[in-house]
């Protein structure tokens, strides 16, 4: 069942040269882990937030964001509240910024339950204890009474995940959930998210700038650039044989931990800011394969890649590009 279906979502902000999101199509089904990869300003966070109906104020929005079949664009407050409290929830990057530092962990977890579900204090506390145990924290009764500064970043991210699970959501949106954490803590948090996702059959959208993390933990991955989806593929295919030049560039910019060490071939220039725009492909200015007259005319559409089932790329030259030598895979 499709939990989240974003259809042709375009978000324009006054004063920016290009749309923040430009005709984004994306879906997440129940039980599926979907990655959304891109650099700063690519629109990945805006896309994720749209699934909670959190679109920037003053934005001009067209397209649809269907959560369990109902559109959130222009939805009324009651419907948004229903989605945010019971269907979808978000884990943010920095738990220290997402949890009130002067309130106890117990307040952070019980308050929403008491306010939205009208539960008693005892009921809500019992549920909070369950949630803290579910995210693998060692001493739930003690954590309820603790303040955020008394917990490490990794523990606090677990609290954030517990908070996100409070409303028994079916869709979990994780926006760079491990970027602020150490690598081994990152592995723990992903083990936790993976376990919860499987146990509960959640749909999970993982937003990250780390293409290797997405490849290692997702079923399917979307790559975004300058507000557009430029490639969609299964995680294995994306990593083994990237098709869009931007995806190739991302992989060519990532130093490998194993295998031969060659000089990195970075994508020249910097990601496109909101103050810039291009008539054609937004990546053309940085692309090794760009061809004047073809790539700078109109934005390429995301189309199925010829000869490759279940994958799409937004590049007019995708069928002509030389194949990429598969990156050495670490067993």
């Amino acid at each position, binding site marked *: 069942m499709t939990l989240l279906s974003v259809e042709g979502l375009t978000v324009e902000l006054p004063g920016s040269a290009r749309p923040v999101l430009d005709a984004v199509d994306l879906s997440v089904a129940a039980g599926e882990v979907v990655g959304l990869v891109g650099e700063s300003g690519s629109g990945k966070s805006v896309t994720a937030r749209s699934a909670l109906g959190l679109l920037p104020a003053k934005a001009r929005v067209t397209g649809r964001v269907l959560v369990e079949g109902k559109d959130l664009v222009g939805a009324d407050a009651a419907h948004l509240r229903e989605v945010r409290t019971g269907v979808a929830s978000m884990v943010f990057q920095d738990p220290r910024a997402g949890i009130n530092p002067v309130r106890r962990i117990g307040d952070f977890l019980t308050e929403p339950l008491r306010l939205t579900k009208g539960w008693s204090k005892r009921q809500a506390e019992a549920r909070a204890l369950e949630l803290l145990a579910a995210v693998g924290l060692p001493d739930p009764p003690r954590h309820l009474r603790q303040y955020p500064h008394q917990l490490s970043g990794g523990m606090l991210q677990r609290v954030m995940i517990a908070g996100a699970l409070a409303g028994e959501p079916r869709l979990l949106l994780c926006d760079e959930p491990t970027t602020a954490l150490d*690598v*081994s803590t990152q592995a*723990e948090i992903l083990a936790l998210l993976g376990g919860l996702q499987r146990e509960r059959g959640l749909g999970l959208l993982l937003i990250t*700038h780390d293409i290797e993390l997405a490849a290692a933990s997702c079923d399917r991955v979307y790559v975004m650039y300058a507000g557009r989806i430029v490639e969609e593929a299964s995680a294995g295919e994306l990593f083994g044989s990237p098709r869009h030049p931007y995806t190739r560039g991302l992989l060519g910019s*990532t*130093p490998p931990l194993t295998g031969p060490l060659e000089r990195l071939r*970075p994508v020249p220039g*910097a990601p496109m*800011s909101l103050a810039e725009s291009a008539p054609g492909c937004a990546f053309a200015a940085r692309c090794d394969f760009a061809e004047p007259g073809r790539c700078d005319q109109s934005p390429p559409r995301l189309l199925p890649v010829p000869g490759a089932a279940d994958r799409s790329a937004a590049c007019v030259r995708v069928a002509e590009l030389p194949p990429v030598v598969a990156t050495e895979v670490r067993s």
Partner: protein
Amino acid sequence: MTALLEVTDLRKTYGGTTAVDGVSFTLPPGGALGLVGESGSGKTTTARMLVGLERPDSGSITVLGQPLGAQVRGRAARLARAKAIQIVFQDPYLSLDARLTIGATLDGVLRLHGQGDRVARAARIRELLGQVGLGDREAAALPRHLSGGQRQRAAIARALAVEPAVLVLDEAVSALDVSVQAQVLNVLTDIRREAGIGLVFVSHDLAVVRYVCDEALVLLRGRPVEHRPMEELLDNPDHDYTRLLLDSVPHPGWDPESIARRRRAA
């Protein structure tokens, strides 16, 4: 050939907590050492001691045979310290003067270090910015008008303007987008080779450390657990902690579950 940097038995405590204990290493000209570990491992404290922002409780730091004194008094001593070691911090948003253009920042550094001729300074600024892939447009810009990657490259150019013997980078590429990070990593490998500048590279990202460094020192709770050539360390880690760090890096067939179990057992 004398070592660029010799660090012997550094130790630093805060109250009852030992932040760094028993850190020693030697850096040859053009050498690059990675300081690897998780938060709280003492890698940033070590970096800060190298540039004199923290005073070690004991141990010594020698640059080109000259001990770095605990006290730096007077203009000559300050300039000598600056020439010995420079640092680039993680956050390019805070490490440049917001009121000066990038060009003016570099100009000030060159003037301070004795370049009196304005034309020569202008040429050198262009050269320094060119090294990190920036041009005249960026030279004329205030830091807030540049992207994070451009600012970080400007911060590196500022450090290089001093022509230090050793450059310390404290998570200096962690906050950059990967495509920009790759540009900066190539700059670092080039300045090592071309100018013989020694690098002390603090990072939690082992793949990045592998790309930049010849050897790595793995720190756990302030103590070195392993100090070996990078390829050896990756192929055949001695210490369980090093192995845990390596396996934690996402890769095809990654099993975060097993890492979580090992961490619980440790």
